[in-house]
């Protein structure tokens, strides 16, 4: 029974099922703790109510590669290989998905991927102006004009000579 023992089924919010190796799923803290709670039960289905299938697929893809690379590069070089893969991985995710992915990963409590995705979003903000950030993330300025002028004045030192792009 070893072959079914080390598999677990993750169910997305739409009800789509993903069969995953335990080695991969155990990186998701929430799945791990749910399975520990129900130890002994033969049923290995974990419902992830709020996580859409596309995010489940992304998360599984990441950790599948993570586990594989770790096995392959036990003696060293794992970190570089992982970085390489992370770069590719992020390239296929758009801005909106990236934000959804943060929420999903946060919910599943998967620290390594959480760092990767948050760092990726942080990169988009690097050296940008306030206006750029508002536009990029679709945020409406809800300060009053006085409030904004006051805040601007407080941080004046930080903005001297910054480009507006």
């Amino acid at each position, binding site marked *: 029974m070893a072959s079914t023992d080390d598999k677990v089924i993750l169910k997305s919010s739409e009800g789509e099922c993903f069969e995953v190796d335990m080695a991969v799923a155990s990186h998701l803290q*929430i799945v791990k703790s*749910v*399975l520990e*709670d*129900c130890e002994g*039960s033969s*049923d*290995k*289905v*974990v*419902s*992830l*109510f*709020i996580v859409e299938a596309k995010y489940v697929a992304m998360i599984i893809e990441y950790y599948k590669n993570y586990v594989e690379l770790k096995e392959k590069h036990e003696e060293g070089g794992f970190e570089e290989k992982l970085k390489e893969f992370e770069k590719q991985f992020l390239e296929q995710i758009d801005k909106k998905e*990236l*934000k*959804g992915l*943060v*929420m999903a990963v*946060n*919910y599943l409590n998967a620290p390594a991927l*959480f*760092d990767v995705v*948050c*760092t990726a*979003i*942080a990169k988009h*903000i*690097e*050296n*940008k*102006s*306030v206006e750029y*950030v*508002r536009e990029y*993330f*679709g*945020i*409406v*300025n*809800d*300060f009053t004009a006085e409030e*904004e002028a006051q*805040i*601007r004045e*407080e*941080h004046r*030192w*930080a*903005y*001297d*000579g*910054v480009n507006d792009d």
Partner: protein
Amino acid sequence: MATIDSHLSSDEETKNREAEPTGSPHDALFFVLAYLPVYELLVMSEVCVSLREALKNDVLPWQNICVERPLNSRLSIEGLLEIASRANGRLKSLSLVNCGKITDDELQRIVDENPIIRKLHVPGCTGLTPEGIIRAVKTLSQHHGNLESIQINGLFGVEKEHLETLCSYLQPYSANQQKQPIFYHQYRSFQTSRNKEGRRIDVEVCPICSQVRMVFSCSRETCEKKIDCRGCNFCILRCAECGVCVGEIGETICADIVCLNCWLHLPKCNFCNEPYCNQHLSPCSSTGFVCDVCDMKAVKFINDVSD
């Protein structure tokens, strides 16, 4: 069936909020705050009310302060004290790279208010003195002894005695932690302190000139010259690209030194056939590039002709 009932209520809430029309920041952005450096945090606190409140009430994003280019030249004393106060006494790491305006008094004030600092990196902060650093490090080691690493490269007047005093306040290396060699090309490509872990203190006494400086190791496993070429940048010339000690020097337009092997492989200017080092090379097309020097000459020539 195994489910995650207990988490359901709060997560439904999250889902509803996500469905709100755009205008308010996505929840994900609040998680990202902890990953942003100082300038970006200041920008985020100006974006909208909810982000500002989040940054005001949360110390987490402010616990690791890192000021480097381009913010370092603008960082004022008031600015530094303000951002340092945001951590509410729980600042964990302070990296100020080339912040010339900071003096011993501000450093001491920050250290007094934040006794749990683990990393104190102030390379190139020329307003600080060795005595000021020693005082700050002493304060930190007396409080909890949490201090793990310091960086003081580029400060003036650091003598062997200062270095010995500083080392005595730092925790000794543990068994699995070794003094890691520093390679010149790696040091150049990330001046930022975030990428250099594992050393307690960045400078040491150069085995050649006995000055307290950054001492680089040769990146060749067995150095070609068959001598121990560990030494500071003044004693041993090194290739900016690969970090080996160089005998025959290849010159670049940006006046950096590279070894002949790297020189051959670097892309060259279409006119003068000189390369830039990779750090100074701006992204160029496959058809090559014209260096700044040749470009200037060309502009001058055109101007002269048209006159």
